[in-house]
C-alpha cells in the first residue's frame, strides 16, 4: 500500500504554491479547486491546476485534486480538466452516500473513455457530515477505485452544531467510524486538517493522537507541517530494532522450512512480519536507514 502520511492542500488559485508545492516533498500534493478558490477565479484556477498536473515537476509526485461537487456549476468542468491532465486521485467533497461516489465514478469513466486514458483515476471520499459518517462503511466498500476515505472536520462539526476544539472530543466518533470503515474495506484513512498553523504544539498532539488511532495520514494546510508529521510517523529506534529482528527471524524460518518462529517467546507470523516490513520501509523513507542497513 502506498505511503500517504502527508497530503498537502494547495489552493488552485495560489500561483506560487501551485508552482512550488512539490519542493516540500509531501507524499501527495492535493490541489484544491473547491473552498479555497473564489467563484470568480474557478476557471483560472482550473487551468492553473490543469497545466501543473501536466508539468514535468509533478511527474514524480502523487497528485490529487479536490474538485467541486458535481451538482455545482463547476464539478464536471473540474473533473474533465483534471482527469484529462492525468491526475492520480480525485477527492470528492461532501460525500454523504454511496450514490455520491458512484456518480463521480461514472463521470470519471466517461472522461477516461473519451480521452483514451488507460490508467484508472483513483477516488478519495471526504466525509464531512453526520450522514456521511453513518454511511462510512458502505461508502468505503462501494468501489475498488476508492483508495481511501478522509474526514473533513470543518463541515462535519458545523453539521453537528458544534465547533472544533484543541482536544478534539467532538471528532472522536467520526474518527473511529471512518477508521474502522476504511480498515474493514482495506483502504486508507486520512484525518482532517489542523488549521491553526501557529499552534505547533497543538498540531503535534493531534498528529500523535491520529497516528495512535491508526490513521494512514492527514491533510495539511501548510508546508511547515510536513516535516513535523513525517517525524512523528517515523518509527523509533526501538521499533526499527524490533522490525529487523522479526524480518531476520522470518527469513530464518523460510530458509529452514518453518511455518512460524518466536522471538522472546512471542510468535512471529505473517501479519507481524508484514508490520515489521512496513516499519523498515517507513524507516528508510524517513531517512533513518540506508539500503544496506538490513
Amino acid at each position, binding site marked *: 500500500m502506498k505511503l500517504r502520511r502527508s497530503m498537502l492542500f494547495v489552493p488552485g488559485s495560489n*500561483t*506560487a504554491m*501551485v*508552482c*512550488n508545492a512539490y519542493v516540500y516533498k509531501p507524499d501527495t500534493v492535493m490541489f484544491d479547486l473547491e473552498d479555497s478558490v473564489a467563484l470568480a477565479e474557478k*476557471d*483560472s484556477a482550473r*487551468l*492553473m491546476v*490543469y*497545466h*501543473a498536473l*501536466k*508539468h514535468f515537476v509533478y511527474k514524480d509526485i502523487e497528485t490529487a485534486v479536490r474538485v467541486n461537487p458535481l451538482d455545482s*456549476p463547476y464539478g464536471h*468542468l473540474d473533473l*474533465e*480538466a483534471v482527469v*484529462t491532465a492525468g491526475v492520480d486521485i480525485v477527492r470528492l467533497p461532501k460525500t454523504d452516500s454511496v450514490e455520491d461516489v458512484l456518480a463521480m465514478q461514472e463521470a470519471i469513466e466517461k472522461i477516461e473513455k473519451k480521452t483514451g486514458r488507460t490508467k484508472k483515476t483513483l477516488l478519495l471520499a471526504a466525509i464531512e457530515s453526520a450522514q456521511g459518517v453513518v454511511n462510512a462503511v458502505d461508502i468505503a466498500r462501494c468501489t475498488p477505485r476508492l483508495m481511501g476515505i478522509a474526514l473533513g472536520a470543518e463541515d462535519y462539526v458545523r453539521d453537528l452544531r458544534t465547533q472544533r476544539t484543541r482536544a478534539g472530543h467532538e471528532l472522536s466518533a467520526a474518527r473511529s467510524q471512518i477508521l474502522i470503515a476504511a480498515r474493514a474495506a482495506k483502504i486508507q484513512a486520512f484525518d482532517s486538517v489542523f488549521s491553526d498553523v501557529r499552534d505547533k504544539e497543538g498540531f503535534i498532539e493531534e498528529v500523535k493522537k491520529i497516528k495512535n488511532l491508526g490513521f494512514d495520514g492527514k491533510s495539511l494546510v501548510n508546508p511547515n507541517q510536513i516535516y513535523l508529521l513525517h517525524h512523528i510517523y517515523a518509527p523509533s529506534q526501538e521499533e526499527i530494532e524490533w522490525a529487523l529482528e522479526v524480518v531476520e527471524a522470518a527469513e530464518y524460518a523460510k530458509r529452514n522450512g518453518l511455518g512460524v518462529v518466536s522471538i522472546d517467546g512471542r510468535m512471529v507470523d505473517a501479519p507481524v512480519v508484514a508490520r515489521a516490513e512496513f516499519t523498515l520501509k517507513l524507516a528508510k523513507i524517513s531517512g533513518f536507514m540506508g539500503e544496506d542497513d538490513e
Partner: protein
Amino acid sequence: MKVVNSAHAGTLESSDAYIQINPINEDIVEIELESSVEELYGEMIEELIRETLKQMEVSHVHVKIQDKGALDLVLKARLQAAVLRACQLSRNPDWSLL
C-alpha cells in the same frame, strides 16, 4: 476561436502574470510584454504566447503581458483563461486545444 470581448486573467503578485486580451481588426497577434526577466526570457515568452494562441486558433488580438517571473505553466494558464473569457467560452472549453 473568436475573441469577442476584452478580458484579463492573473495577478501582479510574484511568480504570476497579469494578461489582458483585446480584439483588434487586423489578422495578427500583437504582443506587448513587460517583464523583469525580459532581457533573458523575452523571446521565449513571446514564442510561448504565439504558440499557445496558434493552438487555440486565435488571431485578431492584442495581448498585454505583465510578467512577474511566472513559469511557463502559469503564463499558459493565464493566457488561456483570458482568451476563454474573451471568447465567452470559460464554461465550455475544448481541452484538446489547451
